[in-house]
């Protein structure tokens, strides 16, 4: 296997409306195992950012620790990145987002990072509706430390070692829904057609967008007794419907497939079209989503697609009432009330 990526690119490589080619959204060469689901997710993020025509330097990518959290090195090489402490990505994302609200924040985490050590942080960033995309690359195991079961492993599922997991799994989508997430979706790293539009919609959503992406660990958790392996997931997938994302500026001219059953307008004016919704699935109803996830799980199926979306809830900045200018650009004139104000406060205390 070659570890050198050729520099050659087709001279007529397609560019997006800002003049960037897909290459401008690529990162370093992945050091993950060949066939790792995480690499497919990185490719989907690249594709989504390219198609959305986001200037690469206007994205900040933040992660915790784990195989999943290594991936921000492998996409968007022109963006600032922060590989933070295990389970602490939400804190770093919150700080960065507060300092500059004008960037796109992509947080990458794993099932170990979010469902175990970072469960507390995951809960609080969710309920604050921080404007970011939070992706969990969920493989049900700790791949970086040789495949121990993680907190999302299903009861009875066994990794390469063959010992069935005895503990109840944590369903991060259900948790996110219960804690007030305004965009919740689930997908599979092997289903690019579903994943790319979901990522695009999640990035365009103003508020906390959570995506749980099942992403098999080819080395430690891809055997016939695992419920997070390629084969099992492919056989047990069910989707709420098909999702298509139409950016605001393309709405009038885009050649989108007809026959969508529902249209949701996002805060920035772009539109999500939902096709072939299962049994009249209502993505705008939190209870429907919770019940559907449980019902499919009881039948041994994994429900994917856009599970829930509330496009108009206030995000963290709006709740906080922060100014529209990025806080990091404020200076003494904006921030410091000065000595006279201080004297008045002191006088009040006497």
């Amino acid at each position, binding site marked *: 296997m070659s570890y050198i990526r050729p520099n050659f690119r087709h001279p007529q490589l397609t560019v997006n409306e800002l003049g960037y080619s897909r290459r401008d959204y690529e990162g370093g060469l992945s050091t993950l195992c060949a066939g790792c689901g995480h690499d497919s997710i990185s490719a989907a993020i690249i594709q989504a950012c390219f198609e959305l025509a986001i200037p690469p330097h206007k994205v900040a990518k933040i992660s915790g620790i784990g195989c999943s959290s290594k991936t921000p*090195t492998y996409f968007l090489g022109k963006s600032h*990145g922060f*590989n933070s402490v295990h389970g602490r990505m939400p804190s770093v994302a919150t700080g960065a987002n507060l*300092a500059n609200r*004008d960037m796109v924040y992509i947080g990458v985490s794993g099932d170990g990072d979010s469902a175990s050590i970072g469960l507390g942080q995951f809960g609080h960033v969710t309920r604050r509706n921080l404007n970011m995309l939070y992706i969990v690359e969920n493989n049900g195991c700790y791949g970086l430390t040789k495949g121990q079961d993680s907190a999302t492993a299903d009861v009875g599922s066994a990794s390469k070692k063959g010992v069935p997991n005895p503990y109840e799994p944590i369903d991060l989508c259900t948790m996110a829904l219960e804690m007030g997430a305004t965009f919740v979706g689930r997908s599979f790293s092997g289903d690019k057609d579903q994943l790319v539009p979901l990522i695009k919609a999640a990035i365009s959503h103003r508020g906390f967008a959570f995506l749980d992406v099942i992403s098999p660990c080819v080395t430690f958790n891809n055997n016939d007794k695992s419920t997070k392996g390629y084969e099992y997931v492919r056989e047990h997938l069910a989707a709420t419907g098909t999702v298509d994302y139409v950016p605001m500026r393309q709405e009038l001219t885009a050649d989108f497939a007809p026959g969508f059953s529902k249209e949701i307008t996002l805060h920035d004016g772009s539109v999500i079209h939902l096709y072939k919704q299962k049994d009249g699935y209502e993505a705008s109803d939190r209870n429907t989503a919770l019940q559907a996830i449980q019902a499919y799980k009881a039948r041994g199926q994994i429900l994917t697609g856009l599970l829930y979306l509330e496009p108009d809830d206030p995000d963290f900045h709006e709740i906080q009432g922060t100014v529209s200018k990025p806080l990091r650009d404020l200076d003494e004139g904006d921030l410091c009330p000065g*000595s006279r104000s201080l*004297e008045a406060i002191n006088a009040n205390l006497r």
Partner: protein
Amino acid sequence: MTAQSFELADQLQTPVILMTDLDLGMNDNMSDPLEWDDSKVYDRGKVLNAEQLDAMKERYGRYLDVDGDGICYRTYPGTHPEKGAFFTRGTSRDEYAIYTENGDAYVRNMERLLKKFETAKSYVPAPEFHPAREKTREGIIFFGTSTAASLEALDQLAAEGVHIDAMRVRAFPFSQQVEDFVEQHDRVFVVEQNRDGQLRKMLVIECDIDPKKLLSVRYYGGMPITAREISRQIHQLRGGATVTPIRRKAG
């Protein structure tokens, strides 16, 4: 000190811990009114903007020490479309923030951090000195909420003819002045409110001081330390009277 902490965090590009304790947090204290200097301009430290990045002839390196103080230039996310972006990672990396397992690059970065630690010593708040009224070879070091009780104890001791030079440490890493103070005295009492004498141990390790020279005055009974307690322990350590004699009233 709080405002200064934020500025130090920007200048040194490191978290700054502002120490407090239950005494300071739970009790009401009298203090001089807080004052603010209106001419104060915020110092965000070494940050490159888009124009500066464009004007640079050399390649930008997030961990490249260009002026020898161990502190490198940073950029804010979103500054420039092509230049200045970097990846902050927990693993070893080179001067350009690129992942590497090269041992030499790792050692260079560790040594740069040592240099930055040295630089930090001159940035952090300097110690405050309270010289004794009479020349003495004895010193006392204290910090934080032990300050007022220590100064009161020094007054009590001076009244009894025991004169001690005092220094209030205000920051870590310790500056050269802290080392010099210990150097200039034969024995130094270190007052602190914890069981293990943590400040004393840090002084020994950081300043390479003979442990026998630093005599620990500790109190950790749960109430704020008192001047009487400090005087009592200092008397004990000096081998003098531990009990103030009761003077019988004449008649």
